[in-house]
C-alpha cells in the first residue's frame, strides 16, 4: 500500500510563468503570477484556496504569509521551504500531508526567483553563514566550483566520463527544443558540450544552469474535491526527504537519497524498471548521475555507465527530464526545485504537448539543494502514479 500520509490528496495541475533571462518583476509579484495562473487554469475560486506552500531565495522581507496577502488569499495552512532545490518536492509532499490531515483542501505549491547570472553569483556570496564565512572569501566560484570538485573526484574514483555527462546534457537539450518555455533551445551536439568554455575545470559552460527568472506552481486538492470537479488526479505513492546527510562531509558525492531510496520504492511498491520517466534535479549533470546512484538505479560509481547504457530519450526505457530540465530551461532559483515536478504532472496528465510521452503511468521526481559548507544539504524524492480514469 502506498504511504498513507498522502492518501487523500491528489495532484491535479501544473503551471509555469514565462521564463526570462533577466528579472522582469519583483519576486513576490512573480510568485503571485504563478499562483493566480495556476488557479485560473483550473477555474478555482480564490476563496477555495486554503493552503499555500512557497519557496524562493529572494522572498525576504516577504514570506508565504505576505504572499497570501498579496494574492488576497486566506489559507488555513501555509508552509515555506528552506531546502533550496529540494523544497519544490518537499512543498508538494507537505501539501499532500496537510490535505490528508484535513488541514487544507485546495493547495498551491509555488517556487521561483527573479534571477540572472549576477544576482545568482551575489546570492552564492552570502547564501548562508557556512558558505559566507568559510568559502566566499575565496573566489570559489559558487556552486560551479563546488560541483567541479565533485565531478573531478567522481571521475577519479569511478572513471566517469565526460561523454556520459554529455549524453544527459544533449538529450535534455533535444527535449527542450520541444518546450516553448525553455530558454536554451538551439541544437547542442556532444562536441558543443565537450568543448564549451571552461568555468571551473572540469566543469564547462553547458554543465552549468543558466540562472533566470520564472516561477513554477503545482495544484493539489483532496481526492474528494477533485472528484467533485471532475479533475483527473495523480497519486503520491511515496515521498521522502533527508537533510544534512553525512553531517561533516562537505562534498556532494553521496546525497540523502542514498538513505531513503529503499523506503521510497518499497512504500510505492514499484521497482525502478516500472518507472515511465524520471525528472532528476539537474543543477549539474554529475549530480544527475550521483542521484541515479543514490536512488538505486545504479550502484555507487556506476551512474555514468548506467546513463551510457540506457536510452534516456523520450522514446527510451527511462526518459530523463522530458521538458529539458534546468540545464536547458534555465534555473529560476528555487523554481528549479519544482520544474521537475511540474514536468512530471504534465506528463502524467497527458498535458505535455509536443514532448508528451506515450501514456506514462509512473514517474519519479527528485530534488536536491541548499548548499551549505560545500555540499547540497537537502534531498527529496517522490514516486507519482496517474490515477485510473
Amino acid at each position: 500500500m502506498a504511504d498513507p500520509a498522502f492518501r487523500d490528496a491528489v495532484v491535479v495541475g501544473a503551471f509555469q510563468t514565462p521564463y526570462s533571462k533577466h528579472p522582469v518583476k519583483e519576486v513576490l509579484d512573480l510568485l503571485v503570477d504563478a499562483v493566480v495562473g495556476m488557479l485560473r487554469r483550473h477555474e478555482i475560486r480564490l476563496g477555495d484556496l486554503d493552503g499555500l506552500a512557497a519557496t524562493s531565495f529572494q522572498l525576504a522581507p516577504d514570506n508565504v504569509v505576505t504572499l497570501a496577502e498579496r494574492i488576497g488569499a486566506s489559507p488555513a495552512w501555509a508552509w515555506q521551504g528552506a531546502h533550496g532545490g529540494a523544497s519544490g518536492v518537499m512543498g508538494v509532499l507537505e501539501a499532500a500531508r496537510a490535505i490528508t490531515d484535513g488541514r487544507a483542501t485546495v493547495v498551491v505549491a509555488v517556487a521561483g526567483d527573479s534571477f540572472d547570472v549576477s544576482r545568482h553569483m551575489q546570492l552564492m556570496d552570502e547564501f548562508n553563514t557556512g558558505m559566507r564565512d568559510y568559502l566566499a572569501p575565496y573566489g570559489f566560484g559558487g556552486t560551479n566550483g563546488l560541483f567541479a570538485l565533485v565531478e573531478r573526484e567522481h571521475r577519479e574514483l569511478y572513471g566517469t566520463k565526460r561523454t556520459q555527462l554529455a549524453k544527459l546534457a544533449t538529450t535534455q537539450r533535444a527535449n527542450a527544443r520541444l518546450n516553448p518555455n525553455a530558454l536554451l533551445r538551439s541544437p547542442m551536439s556532444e562536441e558543443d558540450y565537450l568543448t564549451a568554455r571552461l568555468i571551473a575545470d572540469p566543469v564547462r559552460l553547458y554543465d552549468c544552469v543558466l540562472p533566470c527568472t520564472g516561477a513554477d506552481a503545482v495544484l493539489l486538492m483532496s481526492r474528494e474535491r477533485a472528484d467533485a470537479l471532475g479533475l483527473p488526479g495523480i497519486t503520491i505513492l511515496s515521498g521522502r526527504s533527508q537533510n544534512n546527510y553525512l553531517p561533516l562531509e562537505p562534498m556532494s558525492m553521496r546525497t540523502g537519497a542514498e538513505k531513503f531510496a529503499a523506503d521510497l520504492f518499497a512504500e510505492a511498491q514499484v521497482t525502478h524498471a516500472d518507472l515511465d520517466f524520471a525528472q532528476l534535479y539537474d543543477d549539474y549533470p554529475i549530480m544527475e548521475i550521483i542521484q541515479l546512484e543514490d536512488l538505486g538505479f545504479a550502484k555507487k560509481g556506476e551512474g555514468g555507465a548506467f546513463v551510457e547504457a540506457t536510452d534516456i530519450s523520450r522514446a527510451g526505457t527511462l526518459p530523463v527530464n522530458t521538458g529539458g530540465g534546468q540545464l536547458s530551461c534555465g534555473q529560476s532559483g528555487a523554481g528549479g526545485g519544482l520544474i521537475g515536478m511540474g514536468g512530471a504532472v504534465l506528463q502524467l496528465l497527458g498535458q505535455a504537448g509536443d514532448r508528451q510521452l506515450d501514456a506514462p503511468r509512473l514517474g519519479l521526481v527528485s530534488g536536491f539543494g541548499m548548499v551549505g559548507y560545500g555540499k547540497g544539504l537537502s534531498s527529496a524524492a517522490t514516486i507519482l502514479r496517474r490515477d485510473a480514469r
Partner: protein
Amino acid sequence: MTAPARRSVTEQYRDMLGQGHAGWARCADCGRAHFYPRPYCPHCLSDAVTVEPVTATFRVRSFTHVYRPQRPVDGPLPVLIIAGEAEGITIIAEGSDWGGRECRIGASTRLAVTDDERNVPVFAPADEGSARP
C-alpha cells in the same frame, strides 16, 4: 560574580588566523576534530570544543581551477580551489604557492594563512617532492 565569557569557537578560529595559524576544532572529550568549528562537538555533543592550530598533512581529494569567481578577486585567474582531507575531515580552501607545480589528487598539502587582508587559510604544497606529478 560571573566568570568571563569564553571566546566562542568562531572567535577562537578568527583569533588564530590573526596570529597566522589555520585552525580547526577539536573536542577534549572524544578527541575528534571537525571543521568548520561548531559550538558543540558534532561527534559527541560535548561543549569542550576548542580551536587548535592545524598541523596535519592533508591529502588533495579534489581540486578545480575557477575561471569565473563569484566575486572579483585580486589575484590572477583561474583561482585554484582544493578539497583536502586529513583525519577524515575535508576542508575546502584556495590553493596557494603551487607555482609551476601541478596540483593533483593524492598530493600532500598543508594549511597556511594568507598575509593579505582576507586572512584566510590556504592549501600550500606540503613539500617539493609530494606535489610533483
